[in-house]
């Protein structure tokens, strides 16, 4: 989940990283009061979860409180890429001697966070990496072991920063890295990180993205920031298909059958159990398959709920077949899921043997499940067939059908 800039700045501030004396408001009159308190030129920044803010006129500079109020009124009324602003951030216009970049991002390949630093800030780090690769320092670090300041020192020093600046930057980068781990972030970025005329450093902008599944662990922080449970803060709005998935999951309290994400492929997926969904989704892709969706099923959902999910996927335009697969071995009852997916086929007038490309859910009550699958002629696999092999078979079948 993404944070607005004013929230990200608050998180940075709480981590002990110096920030400007900013204020957030939803009211133009209050923006004026904040500007008066700041007592000098200010920047009015629209608080939206989308890019292109500056270009769209969502960032305005004001020399007086009156100007700040007028700009705040305009910015509050300005939609950017279809997003109405949450409010405005009123920020002192800092006299910056140099802009730097500090960030931490999750590296999904290495499965470790990586800290990134550059003495060239204020622009996209990707651009710096392309044009001045020697000005970007990187270092992976453990998200389990304690983090030493030495790691940050290596990264910052590798970009040629020395002396007093190095000494002041190391604690900032270290705190950012610790914040990243402590708050289950997938991105924690300060850009620009400004060096002021007096040599001190201050975060001038911040972007934070938290792992969505970690929201429960950070309830107190989210409550402090006023982030409600109803705010998904995803990169895009949920599609009607995804909203329908939420309804299926909310159908009753038993188990999980939802967390649906829509894709464009022809192989519908009913997948899950203990992280199995991600592995299976990747397995389908690596076999050359084209998933129609991602989803999660597990924890012993009711037959009705399993059927609801399978029906939703089966009815998705473009879906030719579904693959029903779960992790290595699951405690979710095989017979219950088998009933659910077969019932979905039958109620939609499909032949389960035709529509279910493969059923691979080893685990509880599998013998009973296999009796049901046998009865309807559905191809199934037990635990002797790997997740990847099951995915390959499903892709092969749909390839043959296409």
């Amino acid at each position: 989940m993404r944070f607005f800039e004013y929230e990200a700045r608050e998180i940075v501030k709480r981590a002990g990283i110096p920030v400007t004396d900013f204020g957030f408001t939803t009211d133009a009159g209050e923006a004026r009061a904040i500007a008066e308190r700041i007592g000098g030129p200010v920047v009015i920044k629209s608080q939206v979860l989308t890019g292109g803010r500056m270009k769209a006129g969502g960032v305005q500079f004001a020399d007086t409180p009156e100007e700040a109020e007028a700009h705040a009124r305009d910015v509050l009324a300005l939609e950017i890429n279809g997003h109405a602003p949450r409010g405005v951030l009123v920020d002192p216009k800092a006299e910056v001697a140099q802009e730097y970049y500090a960030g931490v991002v999750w590296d999904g390949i290495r499965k470790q966070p990586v800290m990134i630093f550059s003495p060239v800030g204020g622009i996209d780090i990707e651009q710096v990496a392309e044009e001045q690769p020697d000005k970007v320092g990187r270092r992976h670090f453990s998200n389990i072991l304690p983090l030493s300041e030495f790691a940050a020192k290596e990264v910052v020093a590798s970009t040629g920063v020395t002396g007093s600046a190095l000494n002041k930057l190391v604690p900032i980068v270290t705190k950012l890295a610790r914040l990243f781990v402590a708050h289950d972030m997938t991105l924690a970025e300060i850009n620009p990180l400004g060096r002021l005329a007096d040599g001190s450093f201050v975060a001038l902008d911040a972007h934070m993205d938290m792992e969505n599944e970690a929201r429960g662990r950070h309830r107190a922080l989210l409550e402090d920031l006023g982030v409600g449970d109803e705010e998904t803060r995803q990169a895009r709005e949920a599609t009607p298909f995804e909203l329908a998935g939420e309804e299926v999951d909310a159908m009753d309290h038993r188990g999980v059958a939802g967390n649906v994400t829509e894709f464009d492929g022809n192989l519908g997926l009913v997948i899950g159990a203990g992280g199995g969904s991600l592995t299976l989704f990747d397995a389908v892709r690596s076999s050359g398959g084209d998933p129609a969706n991602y989803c999660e099923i597990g924890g012993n959902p009711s037959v009705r709920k399993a059927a609801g999910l399978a029906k939703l996927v089966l009815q998705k335009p473009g879906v030719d077949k579904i693959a029903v697969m779960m992790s290595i071995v699951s405690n979710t009852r095989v017979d219950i899921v088998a009933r659910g997916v077969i019932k979905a086929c039958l109620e939609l007038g499909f032949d389960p043997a035709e529509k279910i490309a493969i059923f691979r859910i080893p685990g509880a009550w599998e013998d009973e499940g296999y009796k049901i699958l046998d009865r309807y002629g559905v191809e199934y696999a037990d635990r002797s067939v790997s997740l990847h092999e099951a995915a390959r078979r499903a892709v092969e079948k749909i390839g043959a059908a296409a």
Partner: protein
Amino acid sequence: MRKDATFIGVEVTDAVTGDAALAAKLEEVCPVDIYADAGGQVDIVEENLDECVLCRLCLDASPEGTVRVLKLYEGGAVL
């Protein structure tokens, strides 16, 4: 009385359908609400039949042979 869904059928012999104590007991023990106490009469809730988790609690709660759970996917095998 017998009712069938897609996977599960349940049969309650006529001799006990009017047993108010049994009707209450079956409604209480079934974890997936297959039985309802319809004013002292045993009723089978058809839309919940396929939710049966084969726990046998209804069989244990009723006099032997009066309630039967049938696995329709297995040729009507009795639980």
